[in-house]
């Protein structure tokens, strides 16, 4: 309210709700935010897009007082703001709805909303306070279209309604600037639509919304302005109406240094992996994979492109036997993986499939293990490593030593702990392990994430060499250039569905970008 009077008194345009300049933040050697500038107009819905790890969450955490920037200036409504704690942010009218809700499931909606503000109304007892809060909340709920049963237990509410409670909570605390961090990740499409209606109402009522997401559809559907982040930097500020999903996709994914991958056409063999109408439904009935079908032939690389979080991770987990599919079937050789079959990752491995997981730190290796120990993860049962129950450290080290030489892993010390290797050498170790098993099918997730240029070139060459030897490779990557460089065919995923498969000859960044955005 004070904002409006200020603006009326001056008679000019109102100052921006948020103005950031020169914001930088490093964690160890990682530059999470590098000289970020951002201006958010009052009463607008402003989107920030970027891949996972682009620095979006760090930026809003700084704005909300979770972290303090190493350098830079924050202005809220035209006044310099010194935000040291979340309490400071709340005082300035900044509210945040987190990706994971901060609600007490065994409390009612009303109890959750007044939690931490039990004395605001000056009620003598908690009952007084609740009665007073109920009045204000009903009018707030009406004003913003946020109807919810105040006496219901939060545990009994759907995820969409819980989010509504979170929004109401921030408004009750006087928020005029609302930050939403990946708000739709846990919502069904219907709930997402309802959320957007609420956001539109909030905008109408003069609330400024900062929407953090990596889903382009949402940006196009609801925002007024959009800023794109990549690798800790702000790469573009655009007016939503004047941009397109493909332009945004290209900006998000970026152009990396051209790498000589020495790609050439190759003979394709017979089909060795068939995926038939695969679906996967997550917790709360959220569809994660919607009817994916494709064939994978020996001697080809099928690239899976898409903005991250569109089902690629789930596809890898289902194909590798970690998660059983909800419906559909996967045929490998003569064997079938279906919802009814109790296939384990081991069974899939025995069918000749190897998997380089996207998350090499949590899944692909055990960080406190030595390189030698990690070099056999998932292959412990090989007889060459020791007889029966026993497990020889010498055999492990010899095995690892051979891999290190083959794949030029440095330092070539099998006894060194995994977390002391660089990202590139860690990735080479995982690739070496999976490739040396001589699989018929190789699933590769984000092979060059956090990997230096030199190692990238090496990894590309190895992947192409594997293909030439007749291995069928499924390559999942968010780096569009990587997909276009290495793939014989490209499948594009959006919102858990395949947007189609394009041959290398017909694939270019622009058309793929459109498919990634779900436009086609």
């Amino acid at each position: 309210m004070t904002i409006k009077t200020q603006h009326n008194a001056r008679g000019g345009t109102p100052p921006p709700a948020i103005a950031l300049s020169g914001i930088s933040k490093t964690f160890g050697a990682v530059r999470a935010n590098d000289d970020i500038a951002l201006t958010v107009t009052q009463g607008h819905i402003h989107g920030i897009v970027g891949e996972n790890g682009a620095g979006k969450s760090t930026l809003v955490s700084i704005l909300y007082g979770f972290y303090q920037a190493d350098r830079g200036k924050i202005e809220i409504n035209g006044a310099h703001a010194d935000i040291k704690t979340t309490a400071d942010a709340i005082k300035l009218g900044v509210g945040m709805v987190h990706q994971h809700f901060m609600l007490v499931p065994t409390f009612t909606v009303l109890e959750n909303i007044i939690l931490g503000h039990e004395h605001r109304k000056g009620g003598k007892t908690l009952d007084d306070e609740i009665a007073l809060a109920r009045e204000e909340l009903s009018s707030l709920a009406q004003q913003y279209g946020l109807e919810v049963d105040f006496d219901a237990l939060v545990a009994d509410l759907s995820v969409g309604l819980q989010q509504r409670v979170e929004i109401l909570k921030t408004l009750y605390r006087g928020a005029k600037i609302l930050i939403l961090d990946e708000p739709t990740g846990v919502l069904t499409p219907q709930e997402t639509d309802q959320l957007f209606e609420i956001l539109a109402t909030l905008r109408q009522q003069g609330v400024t919304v900062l929407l953090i997401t990596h889903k382009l559809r949402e940006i196009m559907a609801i925002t007024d302005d959009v800023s794109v982040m990549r690798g800790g930097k702000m790469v573009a500020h655009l007016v939503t109406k004047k941009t397109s999903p493909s332009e945004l996709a290209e900006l998000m994914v970026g152009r990396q240094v051209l790498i000589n991958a020495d790609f050439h056409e190759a003979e394709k063999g017979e089909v060795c992996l068939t995926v038939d109408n695969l679906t996967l439904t997550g917790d709360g009935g959220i569809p994660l994979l919607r009817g994916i079908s494709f064939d994978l032939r020996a001697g080809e690389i099928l690239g899976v492109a898409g903005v991250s979080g569109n089902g690629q991770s789930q596809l890898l987990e289902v194909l590798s036997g970690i998660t059983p599919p909800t419906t559909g079937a996967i045929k490998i050789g003569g064997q079938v993986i279906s919802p009814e079959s109790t296939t384990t990752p081991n069974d899939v491995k025995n069918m000749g499939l190897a998997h380089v997981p996207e998350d090499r730190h949590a899944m692909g290796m055990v960080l406190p293990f030595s390189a030698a120990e990690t070099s056999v993860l998932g292959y412990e049962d090989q007889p060459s490593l020791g007889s029966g129950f026993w497990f020889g450290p010498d055999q492990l080290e010899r095995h690892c030593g051979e891999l290190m030489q083959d794949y030029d892993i440095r330092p070539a010390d099998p006894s060194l702990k995994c977390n002391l290797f660089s990202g590139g050498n860690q990735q080479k170790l995982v690739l070496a392990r999976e490739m040396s098993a001589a699989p018929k099918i190789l699933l590769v997730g984000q092979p060059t994430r956090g990997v230096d240029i030199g190692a990238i070139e090496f990894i590309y060459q190895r992947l192409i060499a594997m293909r030439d030897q007749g291995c069928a490779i499924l390559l999942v990557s968010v780096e569009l250039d990587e997909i276009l460089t290495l793939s014989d065919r490209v499948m594009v995923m959006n919102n858990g569905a395949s947007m189609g498969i394009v041959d290398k000859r017909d694939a270019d960044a622009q058309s793929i970008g459109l498919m990634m955005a779900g436009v086609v």
Partner: protein
Amino acid sequence: MSTTLPRWIDIGVLPLLNILAAFIVSGIIIAIIGENPFTALGVMLKGAFVYKGALGYTLFYTTNFIFTGLAVAVAFHATLFNIGGEGQAMMGGLGIGLLVLALDAVVPAFLLIMLAIPVSALMGAAWGAVPGYLQAKRGSHVVITTIMFNFIASSIMVWLLAGTLMEQGQMAPETRDFAEGVGLFKFHEIAGMMGIKVARSPLNLSFVIALIAAFGVWVLIWRTRLGYVIRATGHSEKAAVYAGHSPQRIIIITMAISGGLAGMMALNEILGVQHKLILDFTSGFGFTGIAVALMGRNHPVGIIFASLLFGALYQGGAELDFEFQTITREMVLMIQGLIILFSGALVYMFNPMVERLYHRIVGPEKGAA
């Protein structure tokens, strides 16, 4: 709890620093009550190692600590906290008791002893596997369930020893004595047979079994496929699933092994010394095993040394109580408590300091570019 320090500092220097800190604080307290801390330390050392039979007693207690310490350590490698050593040891004892009482009239003593060893382990394993199952399949945290299982075990023991198993015409909650010869050899007996005169002490063959168990744990954890998978599961469940293992299965197996080791503690007390089943023979050794494992850095060698320290404290502490008017049993308990506090609860207190010092002297950590 990862550290960039070399192993010899981690398992050598740091525990010594912790003990030193505990002794300094204990010394200050002893000085406050008007005794000379150095004299007290002398009495304690003599009481633990020098007096006639003292070493035997110290090693006897050490045996208990080795078993319960190993039990905690094995579970810890899978990031499970087994707080149920007490209950598992009681059940091990119950297994030995039931076996021997049922069969000692008909089965030869030697055979019975050979049977009692696996039975104690199996009973303890069963008592550990059930909380493991509940954690794996039902999500009930092992910390809670193992503690509850201690109470259940304790109640079963009281129920049986004050009822069915109590010796006829007796007032004490104990069973009848085992038949003659059903017990593990004591060291002074073995030495006597070889013509060497050694002071009497309860130290028995369980000590050797404990050392074998320690070696077995080392082999299991670092030289077998199962141990590899246990460690992988402990560090990253995701990685274990990716590698094709079921964390649920590993949790149950690990808890069974852990419980089995704790159950074998009963060999020392029941088959080694009491030769009958009594109440509360575990007297807290199961809990102290946690401190032993922490101090021994979950490594069998470390655990043997930590057990020796705790054994010496147990035995030497009793001597303190005996020699000094002002130092009561409670005082001794407090000193033991301080050692547990510093080497158990505060085990990583000196880590950052030592790490800084080490890197200042040796230079930054070794790693790849």
